[in-house]
């Protein structure tokens, strides 16, 4: 048990020491920060894919899980974004978003019953992490924090549509198609992780 803790500590320390500055890749629509925030979600696949994955997972886990996720995900994203924005430049391990893709994709592919509390906890963790990175990116780019409102709104609408679609699936093959989509998301996350560790990202 002690050896495992030491190994985990070393792995955590290695991740933290290998930090890279958060990379801002903000979209610009010319319609103002709120629209920029909305647009950002749909052109940033490292944010879009985990949102799709958690929405699919919530839908597969039933109406209660979907309802919880629908509200806690945008709230956590906004809260994380506010913290990231006010703390300015945040240093995070390079490729920190790849594990969220891998984990959520695997959970969708496995189609395990997690329950509303665990699904909501995953949504909160996802929202805080990605929202924090987005908020820091906005601060770094010197833009207005109201872009976070657009992001949170877009996430609410997208999560509502996707989780409702997953929830309404009745035929067995449609549920399996969602699991296939989850395996694709997990595979993308794993490739991204390798890409990052190889230093090519």
């Amino acid at each position, binding site marked *: 048990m002690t050896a495992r803790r030491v190994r985990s500590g070393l792995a955590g320390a290695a991740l933290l020491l290998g930090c890279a500055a958060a990379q801002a890749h903000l979209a610009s629509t010319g319609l103002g920060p709120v629209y920029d925030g909305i647009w950002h979600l749909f052109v940033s696949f490292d944010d879009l894919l985990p949102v799709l994955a958690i929405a699919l997972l919530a839908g597969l886990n039933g109406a209660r899980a979907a309802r919880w996720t629908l509200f806690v995900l945008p709230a956590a994203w906004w809260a994380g974004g506010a913290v990231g924005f006010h703390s300015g430049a945040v240093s995070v391990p390079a490729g920190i978003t790849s594990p969220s893709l891998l984990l959520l994709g695997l959970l969708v592919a496995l189609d395990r019953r997690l329950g509303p509390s665990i699904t909501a906890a995953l949504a909160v963790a996802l929202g805080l992490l990605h929202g924090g990175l987005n908020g820091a990116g906005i601060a770094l780019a010197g833009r207005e924090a109201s872009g976070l409102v657009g992001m949170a709104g877009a996430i609410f609408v997208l999560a509502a549509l996707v989780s409702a679609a997953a929830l309404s699936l009745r035929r067995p093959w449609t549920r399996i198609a969602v*699991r296939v989509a989850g395996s*694709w998301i997990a595979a993308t996350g794993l*490739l991204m992780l390798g890409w990052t560790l190889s230093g090519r990202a």
Partner: protein
Amino acid sequence: MKPQPVNVLLLLAGVLLAPPALAHVQQGQAAGFVYGLLHPVSGADHVLAMLAVGLWGAQLGAPAIWLLPVTFPLLMACGGFLGLVGVPLPGVEIGIAASAILLGSMVAAQARPPLWTAALAVGFFALFHGHAHGTELPAGQSGLLYSIGFVVATGGLHATGIAIGLVHRWPWGRTALRAAGLAIAAAGLYFLRRAL
């Protein structure tokens, strides 16, 4: 339907007055996606093996028809991960050729092994395909979009195999599938000869 002069003029005006495309800050992303999309279809050995997975899945029916195409991308990504981080895998080209031989033979023989055996075989060979792709990945492309394109193309090939394999419900379709399996296995022998 005769083209209207106004429409032609509008089209010409649109083409001639078009400003240069301005990419937003994520430059090079589309190139990454397209490159990833094209990579799995750029080699006949990869294409045939992935089609064979779909064909075999269609022959086996549920749940293999879904399990095999889920197993392949996941294990292929594991192989890609190993290739990306520089973990060597011996005999990659031989493994890829062997995948076409074995999977083609399974389709030709209409083999029905236990589900876990089929999944294990498909997953094992997927590692070789993924490793080859992982080591071939060029630097400077968008990693995320490349990966998405890569996975989508692989899934698309499986879906194509499954769609073709649906002819299995007709007697002539079963014969055609077996012939296709034989052709894939023969192509695998050619790939093996080239790899040795």
